[in-house]
């Protein structure tokens, strides 16, 4: 029997509130399947199962806040025999029955607007978002409408029953996120001996290649410079794997997967850094789709547990309209963070002649307990070499 625990979704998370179970006892679940939703200071997280098996018992009721590491459910992994007797007095809430959705269209004057997040949530819950009554602007169906629809006895417009945490106000969420970020960064600055390195890279080849590559693509498939940076960082980490590590106890442990977190600024304040998983193995197109999705999700206040918990390095780009050079702070338990500045035109020497080139500053903050500046320098040089040949990324 395997215990499914409240996951740690980053150094800045101490506890989480279980919002919903998306599976019930007896359900078969596959590794990677979303089985619950948890609310943290950084938003709503879809929690994926890390085992394949059958849910035996749910141990925590929706609406309960529990510390990281608390067992949430018991899962019988494949090969195990079912419990002899049914669990007595399981403290779990049975999965709410799906409500009868309106089957007669309300004759809307036009197709009802459904937020992307609400659409995905509805799909996960197996209901039709278009058939719900929306309470958002112009009758748009919001994620709250979807959530209300699956509550016990919930009809699209009923009030929330007790037991389910009502979302805190935006101001409270921002304040909570600020505290969480502050705690993680204070710990980082207190415990991690950072070293900082910077290199300036000629970004002309990358910009020219991007413009040409995007010329042939519809807008939704266009590539942004951010994915070139992520990809170059991921490939460079293959050569300096000790920077792609997480602390495990007293030692930094290089990770076999290269999961590049990307810092995303949220409107209203705060930031999150969901990871693009296996960024070294995916094509630029796949990375771009993943990037677009995590940005959309993050700004809608939704993340996936694997993206939050499995980052092995972070890239932060503050340069689009801002600074030329970023001096980032490492996000524990990672051991390195890469900063990307603004692309600016500067005099640059090519073949002994001064020419004007678009250049970008790329920085590395490394944990001196895990690596030395020499290895960090090799890593940054490799990133620069990769960006000089974008066609090979």
């Amino acid at each position, binding site marked *: 029997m395997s215990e499914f625990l409240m996951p740690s979704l980053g150094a800045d998370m101490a506890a989480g509130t279980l919002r919903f179970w998306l599976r019930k006892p007896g359900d078969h679940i596959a590794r990677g399947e979303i089985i619950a939703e948890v609310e943290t200071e950084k938003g709503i997280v879809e929690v994926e199962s890390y085992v394949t098996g059958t849910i035996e018992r749910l141990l925590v009721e929706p609406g309960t806040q529990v510390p990281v590491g608390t067992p949430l459910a018991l899962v019988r992994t494949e090969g195990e025999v079912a419990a002899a007797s049914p669990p007595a007095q399981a403290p779990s809430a049975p999965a709410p029955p799906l409500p009868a959705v309106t089957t007669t269209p309300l004759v809307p004057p036009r197709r009802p607007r459904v937020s992307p997040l609400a659409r995905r949530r509805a799909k996960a819950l197996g209901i039709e978002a278009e058939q719900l009554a929306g309470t958002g602007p112009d009758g748009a169906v919001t994620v709250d409408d979807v959530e209300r629809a699956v509550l016990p006895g919930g009809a699209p417009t009923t009030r929330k029953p007790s037991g389910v945490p009502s979302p805190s106000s935006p101001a409270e969420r921002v304040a909570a996120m600020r505290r969480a970020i502050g705690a993680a960064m204070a710990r980082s600055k207190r415990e991690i001996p950072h070293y900082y390195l910077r290199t300036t890279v000629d970004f002309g080849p990358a910009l020219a290649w991007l413009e040409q590559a995007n010329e042939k693509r519809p807008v939704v498939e266009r590539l942004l410079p951010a994915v070139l940076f992520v990809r170059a960082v991921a490939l460079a980490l293959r050569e300096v794997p000790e920077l792609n590590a997480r602390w495990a106890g007293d030692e930094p442990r290089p990770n076999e997967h290269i999961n590049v977190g990307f810092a995303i600024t949220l*409107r209203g304040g705060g930031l999150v850094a969901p990871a693009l998983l296996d960024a070294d193995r995916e094509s630029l197109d796949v990375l771009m789709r993943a990037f677009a999705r995590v940005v959309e999700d993050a700004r809608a206040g939704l993340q996936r547990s694997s993206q939050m918990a499995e980052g092995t390095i972070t890239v932060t780009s503050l340069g689009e309209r801002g600074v030329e050079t970023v001096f980032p702070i490492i996000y524990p338990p990672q051991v390195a963070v890469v900063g990307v500045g603004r692309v600016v035109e500067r005099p640059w020497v090519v073949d002994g002649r001064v020419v004007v080139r678009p250049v970008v500053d790329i920085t590395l903050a490394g944990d001196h307990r895990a690596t030395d500046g020499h290895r960090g320098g090799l890593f940054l040089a490799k990133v620069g070499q990769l960006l000089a040949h974008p066609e090979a990324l």
Partner: protein
Amino acid sequence: MTKDEIRAVIVRRLGDIAPGAELDGLSETADLRDALDLDSMDQLSLLGGIEKELHVTVPPADVSRLRSLRDCVTYVAGRLGVG
């Protein structure tokens, strides 16, 4: 389609991209990135919205011409042949 209709589509798209932004007071000539704190992903979303709803694909070389709301409306109107 009139310029006002084009403008309405673009403003609605901006509202989706930057929820909570004060679009009523948005200057016609302000740089949208500064006025609404848009990043490159937001700009891509706006271009996607223009392509989807107004059927105008902005080639990469033209993207830098669409800085303000007026720029966007003028550009799309020009491509659609709207006076």
